[in-house]
């Protein structure tokens, strides 16, 4: 009986270690493709990470909608396409998929194009937004150019593959 309990305890600890390990791995996953990993795209800044309590430092005034939707942390990095189109990639790690879904559903306009990215996504002339599990990804270009929509989608697929 004692031996059986001991085995159960070891098994429980092992499972816990695996679960925690996977959880930690996800939290620290780097979703940002390196320069050149996606054709034409260069990563032009260090990745900055903001915990929920510090999110105002990045998006003051915008932070509350993410906090109320259960954001855990936010990672952001700048990119440039062919040395011309400047882009910001924001990856919001929410507490669950429902939080990501809530943000994605907000503020969509009639000209939103549905795209096959993650669990759901939309694109505009200068931005792509999608969710995958607890992640909400927003990719925004500073300029509108004819090649921007396709280039943004390519980058978005690159980010999706790393989530």
């Amino acid at each position, binding site marked *: 009986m004692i031996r059986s309990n001991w085995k159960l305890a070891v098994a429980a600890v092992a499972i816990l270690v695996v679960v925690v390990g996977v959880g930690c791995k996800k939290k620290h996953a780097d979703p940002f493709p390196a320069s050149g990993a996606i054709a034409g795209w260069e990563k032009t800044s260090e990745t900055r990470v903001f915990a929920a309590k510090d999110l105002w430092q990045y998006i003051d005034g915008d932070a509350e909608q993410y906090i109320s939707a259960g954001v855990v942390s936010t990672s952001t990095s700048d990119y440039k396409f062919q040395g011309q189109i*400047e882009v*910001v990639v924001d990856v919001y790690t929410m507490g669950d998929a429902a939080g990501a879904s809530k943000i994605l559903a*907000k503020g969509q306009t009639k000209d939103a194009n549905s795209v096959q990215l993650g669990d759901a996504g939309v694109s505009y002339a200068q931005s792509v937004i999608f969710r995958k599990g607890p992640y909400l990804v927003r990719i925004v270009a500073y300029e509108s150019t004819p090649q921007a929509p396709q280039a943004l989608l390519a980058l978005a697929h690159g980010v999706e593959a790393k989530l």
Partner: protein
Amino acid sequence: MENRRDFLKTAAAGAVLLGSNSNLALAAAIDQHTEKGKSKVVVARDAALHTATGQLDEKRVADLLDRAIAAYTGRDKPAEAWKRIVPVGKVIGLKVNGLGGKPIATHLALTLAVCERLQKAGVKPSEIVVWESHRGDLERAGYTISTDRNRIRCIATDMEGYGHEEKPAAFGSVSVNFAKILTRECDFIINLPVLKDHELAGVTFSLKNFYGAVQRPGELHANGCNPAVADLNCIPALRDKFRLTIGDATASIYEGGPGYRPEHLWYPNALIVGQDPVAIDYIGWQIIAKKRAELGLPTLESAGRPTTFLTTAADAAHKLGTNDPKRIHLMEI
């Protein structure tokens, strides 16, 4: 000699409502054609300010600024007009907003034009400070950091040597630690905010731009930023230094703000000038409301973010200005 009470009756209401000695001279300088008892707000537009590809025409921005200031002061010559606005020998802080990145920050072309005109009015380069909360925001908005005290400085609170006051300042519901750039580096502030939709407050423009002057602005967002916006702007360390708003509405966000949302970007192609920040914000709100109506979007109130902070800012406890359209002398040029 005209006492303060008499002055209240005769000068431009916007300056009066601000209640600061620093603003009295400017109030007297405002075009005498301003209807008495009203806050003057100039909305200067140029439909060709942006090219077809969305590029801002810098020369036209400078010309639009001149037109706006001329209309506001009633002086045709820019240098003469600016002399009425800024005192000699004082350090002028230009509070820009870099939060949304280059497309929706205070445009560099506008800031440079203001700097140039200040200098033509006799302000030394060393007496001009362009500032914002975060260095990164300034750089992403296209500004070049400069700390040389012999030149125009472009600095941020999070840079080494600046930071926030250790002792908080308070009014009403707020207790904040102001940026030392505001409290120690600048004698007067010209506010250069950006007109945007705001997720919580409804609209962000003149009053709310000073969230970038405190240490923990995240704590001031409860209840649609009300009454925090009004309370913050009533603190003497800020209120007594505020001089003029030159609002950047060349590009704006009508939905999803205050972050940059290119899908909700449009070009009002306007500069909005005035000394009454409540009146300025009221007019900015109307511009966004009109755009939303054109697009069939719900009103900000229906969308759950009424601009109640404006009512508070105008109430008897704050007296920051007026949100009553009947008391706003709107000049659209």
